[in-house]
């Protein structure tokens, strides 16, 4: 069994780095993709951001100081890359953050890889109505399966605040989705 410390050593050793990086991709590519996808909404955007994220990870590995877990560090990079992407998109479109939030559903449904039907659209609508930070906390806990401690490290908020926000959001969504079996059956 390989510990994270051993894995990081391999990642930072030029002799083993390439093979270790390929393993890192196997382990985290899908997790980071889904995290990014929910932030940037479309598959095409997520693909761009995912590639940039791993390029940044590869370049930054020699400087990784292990102040957090490798996983948290990578999620933080993915999160920041997503925010950077959204910021650039906003500049291109001369749109405000509020406009972007309002266009959440439009952007999502215009994506050719959005396969949602009535139920998924309803959940997405409920999510789009949430404040941005509240939505992120919910998505990271609920869909990305991250621990509160990890979300704290990524978003930089207090754990108590995060927990409170999350449980309020869950309650809110449950009420909104009461008639939708899919959501209440699987989760919370």
């Amino acid at each position, binding site marked *: *069994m*390989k*510990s*994270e410390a051993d*894995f990081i050593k391999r990642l930072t050793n030029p002799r083993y780095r*390439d093979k270790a*990086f*390929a*393993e890192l*991709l*196997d*382990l985290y*590519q*899908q*997790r980071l*993709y*889904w995290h990014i*996808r*929910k932030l940037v909404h479309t*598959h095409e955007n997520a*693909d761009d951001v*995912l*590639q940039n994220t*791993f*390029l940044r990870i*590869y370049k930054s590995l020699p400087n990784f100081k292990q102040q957090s*877990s*490798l*996983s948290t560090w990578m999620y933080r990079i993915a999160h920041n890359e997503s925010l950077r992407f959204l910021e650039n998109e906003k500049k291109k479109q001369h749109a405000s953050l509020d406009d972007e939030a309002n266009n959440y559903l439009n952007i999502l449904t215009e994506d050719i*890889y*959005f*396969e*949602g*039907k009535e139920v*998924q*659209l309803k*959940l*997405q609508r409920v999510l789009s109505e949430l404040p941005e930070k509240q939505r992120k906390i919910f998505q990271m806990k609920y*869909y*990305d*399966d*991250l*621990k509160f401690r*990890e979300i704290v490290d990524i978003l930089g908020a207090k754990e108590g605040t995060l927990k409170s926000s999350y449980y309020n959001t869950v309650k809110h969504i449950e009420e909104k989705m009461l008639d939708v079996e*899919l*959501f209440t059956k*699987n989760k919370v």
Partner: protein
Amino acid sequence: MEPLNKHNTTGQKALEEKLQKTHIEDLGLGMPEDYFSKSKSEILTKVGIKDKSRVLPLYRNKIFWAAAAAIAVLIVLTVFKTSTVPQIDGIPAIVSDTIEQLNNGLADDDYNQGESDILISSLFVEDAELDEFVDNFMLEEVLFDETEFKYKK
């Protein structure tokens, strides 16, 4: 989050399946077929790492070409090994070529010249050799005859 452990593939797979299921079923987020495999290759290429898991066409593989060349050489050697001397209609080519040359008259002069040289040279015998041969023959013949003659008597 699961700790890093390459050998924990079951847990890794289960987590990925769960993530995929919830994102597709709950949120309707789809993606192109085989996306993660292609994306991995692209990322590895961008960072300058050769993707060993990627299936490359055989014709791009240098080892394949080397092996193909070696096999071709082996086949050639196997096919022609039994007839290392080139043959035409079961006759060694060197013989058939000579026959052909003779038939065409191309080598007539050379051939006849050689034959003539052999015949003429065989006619020349040193006198001393000839005398010695004759003397010996005569002596043996005479001695034999006389001995034979005595017995008969």
